[in-house]
Each structure stands twice: as structure tokens, then as C-alpha cells.
């Protein structure tokens, strides 16, 4: 394992292609991202952003090419890799007929978290839901669900966090909590975030990527980005449609 973590890059993607039938959702994507970087991924609907995250989180196998996260291959090292990554999606991925605490304890068991009760209590407090821990999550608002979803994703202390439009549908208070949590763990985590919000994405990122038709249109470090040119490129890709 130490060998794996000595790798400098958090992401190494080479010629990554994922096809659904004849349609290529990802078409020869190459990408390198160093550890503790924050990558914001932009692109129009159908550009392949969610497919990219699904491949990197082992939910989909690539059709061609390779992808490594923390030096682990997303296909051959999938089970081990899953202990090092977390996903916060716009879909909360929680059971509505379990309480907040039961949901987190369930996922703590799935990840083999040690001292699960203490970890769950700590995270419920961090996302300000400890007072609702015994309520069924079907009674939660969108913002509360998203906060609990953040706690679920952080349970096993992942090193790489994938965020699929995490701010979607959040009220300002929930956005502040998410901002605070990201700021807290920013220094020792790698982030990959899909966003349609250019301002937010550019504010947070150390690297930015624009995908269109499954291909990389632009991949730059934040300090090399001219905001006006970037926005112009993004606007031009939105009209490119799906792959």
C-alpha cells in the first residue's frame, strides 16, 4: 500500500473511452492531476462529465484506455480503490426509510469504519444534523439530505472526493456548510467536482477542465486561466451538444 500512496498523481487517465453502443460518452480522455488538487469539470449536458466520474469511481468500466486513482487501476484494483474515494452526488444516495443515524451506521459497516458510533456522532455534529439523527430521512429537506450525504461520503475518511453537482438545490445555509467542510479538508484531500456554476467552480479549483462530446476541450491550471477566455470557451462548448 505504501508504494501506492507514494504516487505523485491522484489521477492518471490515458486514452479513456467509454461507449454506450455506438455512442462514445468519453472519447480518448487524457488527464493528470496531482494529489491535493481541486479539479472543476465543466461542460454542457451530455458532455461526458458524469460518465467520467462513474469510471473514476469504479461504477463503470472503461471501454478502452486506462484510469488510475491514487495509483490504483479503476478495474483491477476496484475493491481496494473504493476504500479511498468518496462520492457526493446531486442524488443523496440514502435510504429514506432509515433514520439519519441508521443510514450512516449502515454505510460505516459497509466501509468497515472503526468505532462507527463515535464517527457517526462526529459527522452528524459537523453537518449540524445531530438533533435530527433519529428522524427518517424521508422527512428531510433537500438541503438536509445533501448535508447527510456529505457525512456519508466522508465516513471512511476518503483521500479523493468526487462531487457531482454538489451545490445543486442547496439553500444558502447548506452551501455555507458544504463550503466550510470543503475548506476544512481541502489541504489533505483531492477533489474532482462537476459543476455548471462557473463562478463557484473557478473559485474553488486549482485545475479546470472543459469536456464536450466526450473529449477534453481545455485543461488548465487555475493560475494559467484567463477568466474571460475560459468563459468564452465554455460558452462555445455549450452549443456543441451531446456526443
Amino acid at each position, binding site marked *: 500500500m505504501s508504494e501506492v500512496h507514494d504516487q505523485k498523481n491522484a489521477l492518471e487517465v490515458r486514452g479513456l473511452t467509454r461507449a454506450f453502443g455506438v455512442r462514445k460518452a468519453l472519447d480518448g480522455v487524457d488527464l493528470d492531476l496531482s494529489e491535493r488538487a481541486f479539479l472543476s469539470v465543466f461542460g454542457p449536458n451530455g458532455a461526458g462529465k458524469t460518465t467520467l466520474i462513474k469510471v473514476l469511481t469504479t*461504477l463503470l468500466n472503461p471501454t478502452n484506455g486506462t484510469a488510475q486513482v491514487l495509483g490504483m487501476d479503476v478495474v483491477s484494483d476496484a475493491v481496494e480503490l*473504493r476504500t479511498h474515494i468518496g462520492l457526493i*452526488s446531486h442524488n443523496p*444516495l440514502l435510504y429514506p426509510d*432509515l433514520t439519519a443515524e441508521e443510514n450512516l451506521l449502515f454505510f460505516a*459497516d*459497509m466501509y468497515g469504519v472503526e468505532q462507527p458510533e463515535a464517527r457517526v456522532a462526529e459527522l452528524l455534529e459537523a453537518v449540524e444534523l445531530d438533533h435530527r439523527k433519529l428522524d427518517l430521512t424521508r422527512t428531510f429537506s433537500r438541503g438536509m439530505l445533501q448535508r447527510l450525504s456529505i457525512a456519508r461520503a466522508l465516513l471512511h475518511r476518503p483521500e479523493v472526493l468526487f462531487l457531482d453537482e454538489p451545490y445543486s438545490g442547496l439553500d444558502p445555509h447548506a452551501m455555507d456548510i458544504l463550503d466550510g467542510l470543503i475548506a476544512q479538508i481541502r489541504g489533505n484531500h483531492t477533489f474532482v467536482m462537476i459543476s455548471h456554476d462557473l463562478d463557484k467552480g473557478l473559485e474553488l479549483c486549482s485545475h479546470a477542465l472543459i469536456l464536450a462530446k466526450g473529449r477534453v476541450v481545455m485543461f488548465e491550471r487555475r493560475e494559467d486561466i484567463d477568466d474571460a477566455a475560459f468563459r468564452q470557451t465554455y460558452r462555445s462548448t455549450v452549443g456543441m451538444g451531446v456526443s
Partner: protein
Amino acid sequence: MAGLSGRQLRAMLRKDIVMELRTKEMIMSMGLYALLTMVVYFVALSQAGSSFDPRDIAAGLLWLAFIFTSMLGLNRSLVHEKDQGCLEALLLSPVDRPVIFFAKAGGNLIFLLAVELLTLPVFGFLFLQGEQMDASSLALLPLILLAGSVGISGVGTLLATMSVNTSGKDFVLAMLFIPLMYPLLLGAVIATGGAIVGGAEGVGVFWTGMGWVVGYDVIMLLASYGLYEFIVGA
């Protein structure tokens, strides 16, 4: 990893049972369907002549009811996971796919057995009341109920996973499930019929059917175990 797999298996089983005890969706729908099927059987056979012996067809009626009832639960068990995106959360966790299979199949087995326990007394009351029965051979019934239900739950869980992403999942499940259930149905009906008829001959017939069902269970569970990772990945 074996310790973690055990913890994951227990967690998934506990989660399914807690959610079912809270909502009672599967037990209620399966239980009501099974009871209604019994009533329909009763009405349909009510005009049979006095020479008709219900013991001749009791085993077939019973297993048909169980097979159709089980399809309701099988569909729901996976749809719950799929609808809320929770299947994705499960697949994101470091769980070996066969562990998910055994947990879901185990949950389905528990709920199916619960419905069978509710249905059997009603069936006995409606169809076998006053019939000459051999208590010692009837005591074998739990064995075939368990063996048959293991096969239904195992194969059904695999097929429900295959069909959950299809647009006509109920239809797809039925089209795959019923033909694959034919060998199990045959063995289970033979064994149950033997237990109901009783006597030395009935017990012999029971063990023939039981051997058939156990063989089916072993083959199909091994196949399901081997195929589950591929099916979930697809």
C-alpha cells in the same frame, strides 16, 4: 476481508429487515396476494364433485401461489435500492458483489418464508380440512418449503438484478423467472405431494422431490454466485 464481508452481509440484511418492519410493503403485498390466490383457488374448486380429492392437487396449488407471490417481493427488493440511487452507493462501497447477492437473496428468503408461514394455515383450513393426513410425513413440509424458497430467492434475486434496469422490469422478470423455475416447481410439487399423501410411499416420493430441489439449489446458487459480479457490472 472475510471479517468485513461478514459485517457487510449482516448490515445489509439488518437494513432490509428494519426497512421492511417499518414499511411492511413487501410482507403486506405478498401476504395479501397469497391469501387472495387461496380464495380464488377455493372459489374455483368449490363446484368440484364429491369424488374430487384436493390432496391430489394441493401441492401444485401451493407452489404456484408461492412462485407468483415471490415475484412481487423480488421486484420490490431491488427497486427500493434503485429508486433512491442506493444501489450506486452500495456499489461504491468496498463490497464484493457476491456479498450483495447473498444479502439480497437472504432478505428475500426471510420475507418469502414469513409469507409462506402465514399462507399455510389458511391453505390447510380451506383445502385440507377433514382430510386424512399423516402427521409424521407432514412434519417434513418445512424442509421442502425451505429448500424450495432458497431456490426461488437465489434465482429470483439474480434475475431481479438483471431486470431492474430494464424499462418493463415486471414483464422481463416474469419472462425469465417462470421458465427457470420449472425444474424447481416440479421437484417441490413432487416432494410436497409426497408429504401430504404420507405413508411409506409418500415419504419415498418426498425424498425424491427433495433431492431434485436441493440439486437445483446447489447448481443455480453456484451459477448465480458466479454471474452476479458480471450482471451488476453490466
